[in-house]
């Protein structure tokens, strides 16, 4: 089964955030990048050094897994310009990304795309936040603002 993967550069860039975030984990860093990528509509295939993570949503993120999966489908539908009312296309897109079984609810393709959004999301964050964040407290505040702004212009905006 495919695993979540995060670019090594992203981990380096977020190292101080992870260190200073109470109970911060690598999955948190992945989440920040993935949500940034999904909201900004930035997906870039993962090439180069990357860190293999677990293949399941860790405990803190299990309750919100549906939203992440839903966001992935919506972002891909919007990227492919498929209307929500195009039944067959919607079904096909859903099926290509979401698995009926397994640890994480994603197909191989779905995991690949989510990892691509995480990669793109890191790029997006690094472009908009220079120099890299020195503390979790500072990063979270800036991140919240960035996401709110990018949501207004990305695939989730109508």
């Amino acid at each position, binding site marked *: 089964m495919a695993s979540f993967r995060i670019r*090594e550069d992203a*981990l380096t860039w977020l190292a101080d955030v*992870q260190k200073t*975030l*109470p*109970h911060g*984990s*690598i999955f*948190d860093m992945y*989440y920040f990048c993935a*949500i940034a990528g999904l*909201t900004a509509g930035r997906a870039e295939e993962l090439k180069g050094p990357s*860190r293999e993570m677990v293949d399941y949503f860790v405990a*803190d*993120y299990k309750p*919100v897994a*549906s*939203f*992440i*999966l*839903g*966001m992935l*489908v*919506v972002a891909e*539908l919007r990227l492919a310009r498929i209307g*929500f*009312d195009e*039944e*067959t296309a*919607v*079904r096909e897109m*859903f*099926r290509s990304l*979401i*698995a*009926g*079984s397994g640890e994480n*609810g994603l197909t191989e393709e779905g995991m690949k795309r989510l990892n691509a959004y995480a990669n793109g999301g890191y790029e997006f964050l690094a472009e908009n936040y220079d120099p890299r964040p020195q503390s*979790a*407290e500072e990063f*979270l*505040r800036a*991140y*919240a603002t960035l*996401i*709110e702004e990018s*949501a*207004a212009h990305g*695939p*989730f*905006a*109508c």
Partner: protein
Amino acid sequence: MRINIAGWSCEGLRCPDVDIDLRKADGLPFHVAFLQMPNGTGKTTTLDLLKAALSGEAAKWDEAMVRGVRRRGDENETGSFKVKLLVDGRPLTFEIDFDFENGRALCYTTRPGSGGVRSGWFPPPEMRRFLDISFLNLFVFNGELANKLFVPEEGAAEGAIDALCQLYLLESVSDQLDTEWNKAAKSRAGPKTQATLESLQTKLGELQARKTKLTRSKEKAVAEQAAAQAKSDELEEKIREKTVGMNKDQGDLADSRTREAKADGIVKEATASLHQAMRLPLALSPIIGKALDDWKDQLDDLKLPEVTSAQFFTDLQKKDECICGTTMTEGMRIQIGVMSKAVLSTAENGQLNIIKGDIEKYRPEPGGLTFNEDLTQKLADLSAARREQLEAQQDVRALRRKIIEAGGDQVQEWEAQQKESDETCGRLQALIDAIDDAGLNLRPGEEVYSLAKIQRDIDEATAKITEATNTVELRRKTTLIQSILQRAEELARRTIKDELLIACNERLKIILANDPIELEAIDGHLKLAGQDRGSEAQMLSVGYTFLMTLLERGDNRFPLLVDSPVGKMDGTVRRQVGRLIPDLCSQFVTFVINTERADFVSSVEGRATDALYLTFFRKTDGTRRLMANLPAGNYAENDSGVLVSDEAYFDSFDMEDEE
């Protein structure tokens, strides 16, 4: 078991030749023996030799150590040190013969019933553990030990418990189990697996070595960090004392620091709270929630998930008749197959239902804050907390700067030194954190500091070796026994500490009735109840009480032999400590110099059943005048020293008379 020191003698060594007898006429040892020895008479050497003889360690000394005890300026080729014990009333002697020419030390043991003098260190088996060097340090020591028991980083209290109660043996058994398993694994490997096995075993060896190294590194880092922190604290104290005139500023600084610490806590809490809120994507922007809602609504319109899943169609394909009753043809089966691919499977439908259900479920309470509003509130809270923190940090910096500058160059230098110590602390903390880290997020090829990761790798390598050598069952049993040993250690440690705590506090109620203090816990070090420190007298009383309570566990009785027990203390403390010691032990032998007599000796002798007063000094030009007043019949002299056994002489002895 009751152990007493009957005396000792030395010849040809750095300390003057002497024969010390601590026994009364009836052969039993004096309750208390004062041994007054001016500085330079060899107190420290004597203590070291006592421990070396009792533990048999001298046999392991190298040439330099052996020659190090030779009398300076002498060309004698040999020397000897002998310590005489009474063990449950029976004599036992340990002797070290020094061969300075060849740089060797030979040990001898004499005990009745074992054929007289025997070459080597051979205590009775039941006594061995009490003569382990770690244990000896509990009853033959200098006055610093009692204080060390309170220092967290020293772990002296835990070490004392381990030594006496032999908890270290559990680890010895565990190590032996691993050795046996390794032996079995080696012997069972077939020729096909030999090369793989060797490679795995090499890897396992390397991992175990790395584990040991990291464990030691951590211990060293913790100790060094404690030292650096202590230095930083000491410098802080110096700075504070130097600038003590600035009362108002010092007070303001203390207040600001409290405010800063509080602000740090609030920022941390606010960060955690905000982070938790951000884990829900809906909270990050209402646009996300709206888009998901729209998609969900559209799915409802499309009637997705389907009422009929792909399973229905694939099942239908297998039937002989269609649902309308028509006989199934090949063409119909193909068509149904096409249809089945066009709908979601049961599992996919199920997943979609879950997603829709979760989107539906996450609606804010009516009249309550939306998730985004809640997050916005938390953002504001964090910003406010951060502002407060920055202000508090600024105040602390400014006040400190003011105090430092008023203190002049010396204070500024101390501040620079303190900064260095703090940086060292930080560096060591980073190392400790790396070693304590779970090691879950390491880069490939990154050097591993995480002990947890090393242990996981050890477990993995062990499992592979087990598999390669068909020693699965053996490994399982080995692991089981090791778990038992580990659990037993936890249980034993807890019970012993609980029992010691109660026993110590019972004793302290009596000993310190007028100056009450209580122990709260024994966690590696001694922790006082309700306070970090007591008075010096209280701390020593607690320290000595702990030691003696521990030593008496299992109905054993040990002597206390202490070098300068009250050297640095004032009169009041000396009196208090002096009063308590005789009640704590059955034999107390102490080295003192004349300036340590005051207050201490009279307090001790007041509570002792009997006492011996010895004065011992080296024969030199400087001590020649002391030969004039020796009490007739109560002294022994040789070429190198004079030993006087006389109370009056003891009380009046002063190295600085007529200078």
